[in-house]
């Protein structure tokens, strides 16, 4: 009994410490954002004496953060909408429509999952430059769709294949065309999976820095993540304002995480265990 209690502490203590190490960095940053520059230089560790939002306001207005934020929202919204549309259509086709080569097509999508972005990034930039898509929203959105579509198709196809073929057959007997089946059966039944994969894709696109850095070189087209890296140079002597910028970029992600925690975890593991 005694031995069991001691070993339980041996496990619980490191786990609690690790949880602290996971949360503390964000708390430190949030605290720094609420301090005056003077207070931060004087003592980084003391708690901010009050919730001061003027650093956040400075970071939002003076550094172009508002503009970067909007750019990110445009790119993420466009990319996620297209990903869900294409992903659900292709997922339905690959799981329920038998046509010549459908199996090989699914394998092709799987294969694409294993080609890392770095390997195709040089040809991608060249193709985008040749077609005049560099530094445009459609170019960035297309790059995100190309990057995350294989994963989206794969998840949608494995979700849809759990829907019995009888339901599809019944809908057809009721006079639905293939598009009718997609719109009336597959789209509504796939909503939970669409939500999961949509949230995950939104996070991927929002958090990306490499693709945005490559394809949106001009200052007014920067996404928020690229913007945060430029904030660092601009406010290297003003840590509270820099910390505020980091917070602005992190808060939407944290909100999404708090609301959709389970869905994100589900989408991550759905891609892993069946892979």
């Amino acid at each position, binding site marked *: 009994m005694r031995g069991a209690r001691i070993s339980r502490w041996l496990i619980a203590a490191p*786990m609690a410490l690790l949880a602290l190490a996971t949360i503390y960095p964000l708390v430190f940053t949030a605290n720094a954002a609420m301090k005056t520059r003077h207070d931060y230089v004087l003592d980084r560790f003391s708690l901010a004496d009050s919730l001061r939002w003027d650093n956040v306001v400075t970071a939002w207005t003076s550094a172009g953060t508002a503009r970067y934020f909007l750019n990110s929202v445009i790119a993420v919204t466009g990319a996620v909408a297209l990903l869900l549309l294409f992903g659900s259509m292709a997922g339905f086709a690959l799981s329920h429509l038998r046509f010549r080569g459908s199996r090989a097509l699914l394998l092709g999508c799987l294969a*694409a999952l294993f080609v*890392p972005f770095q390997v195709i990034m040089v040809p991608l930039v060249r193709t985008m430059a040749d077609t005049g898509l560099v530094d445009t929203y459609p170019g960035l959105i297309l790059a995100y769709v190309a990057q995350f579509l294989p994963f989206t198709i794969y998840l949608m196809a494995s979700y849809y294949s759990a829907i019995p073929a009888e339901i599809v057959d019944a809908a057809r007997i009721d006079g639905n065309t293939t598009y009718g089946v997609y719109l009336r059966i597959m789209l509504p039944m796939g909503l939970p999976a669409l939500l999961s994969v949509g949230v995950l894709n939104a996070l991927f696109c929002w958090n990306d820095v490499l693709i945005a850095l490559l394809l949106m070189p001009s200052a007014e087209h920067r996404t928020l993540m690229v913007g945060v890296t430029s904030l660092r140079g601009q406010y290297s002597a003003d840590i509270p304002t820099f910390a505020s910028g980091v917070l602005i970029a992190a808060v939407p992600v944290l909100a999404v995480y708090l609301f959709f925690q389970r869905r994100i975890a589900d989408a991550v593991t759905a891609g892993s265990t069946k892979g």
Partner: protein
Amino acid sequence: MAPAVLVIVLFRLWPLLLGVNFSLTGDGDRNGVVVGLDNYVELFADPLFLGALRNVGWLVLLLPVAVAIPGILATFIYLRVPGHRFYRSVYFFPAVLSPVIVGSIFNLLLSFGGPLNRLLDVLGIGPVDWLGDSHVAMFTVVGVHIWATFGMALVVFLSGFATLDPALLDAARSDGATLPQVIRHVIVPGLSRTIQFVFVTTMIGMLTSMFGLIYVMTSGGPGGSTYLPEYYIWIQQGQMNRPAYASAASTVLFLVMLVVGLAQVSILRRTGRED
């Protein structure tokens, strides 16, 4: 068959071949001229690229740590230590943050007078120049990468545990097996597929998703000590304007990933058989 072939060629083989082909041509004055293996010869004479490959070697050596931490934590959570639900969501949350945000936060934490050095000070160890010392910086960046991603692997492990037969655990317990024995004889063999999956995805993650961290935290420095192939590719493509040379580096990265991936799978298969 035609569409399937098209997708595989378009997504997988075409960009790869385009890149390989492109890597055999020259840049700048020699744009479009076939130069044979010149780029590769130059690549393997560049100390920065060789340093990047050496860092890949370090990643391979640190890989077991990056897999063991989430594996052990998942085991404790699965065995329902007190607060396991709380730990699950806390540990997972850094995984949704962008590398840019994580890197920015750790730039504050690791500064000379920052919290980590303060902690070392309390313990009586001198301050460490985490990002400015060329012998330390690479390990710092990898450490932060592990901090940011272990939650992802943890969730994958937990979904693997869900497929484990609980009767086996009960049997082991009623036979009086200790925790290390349970891990060695029940959990590890039962999860061999999951462990294999985590090994491969963690390695791919280390080779392809540390760009943001390196970009924000060290920019490859000090003295080029934190270069990874993907960062090198980006520098050559984006900063040096040498796309053909960057393609050569991409091709090498792809080969490295292929070799490392195949080696891992075969090693894990062999150890799996011994059990």
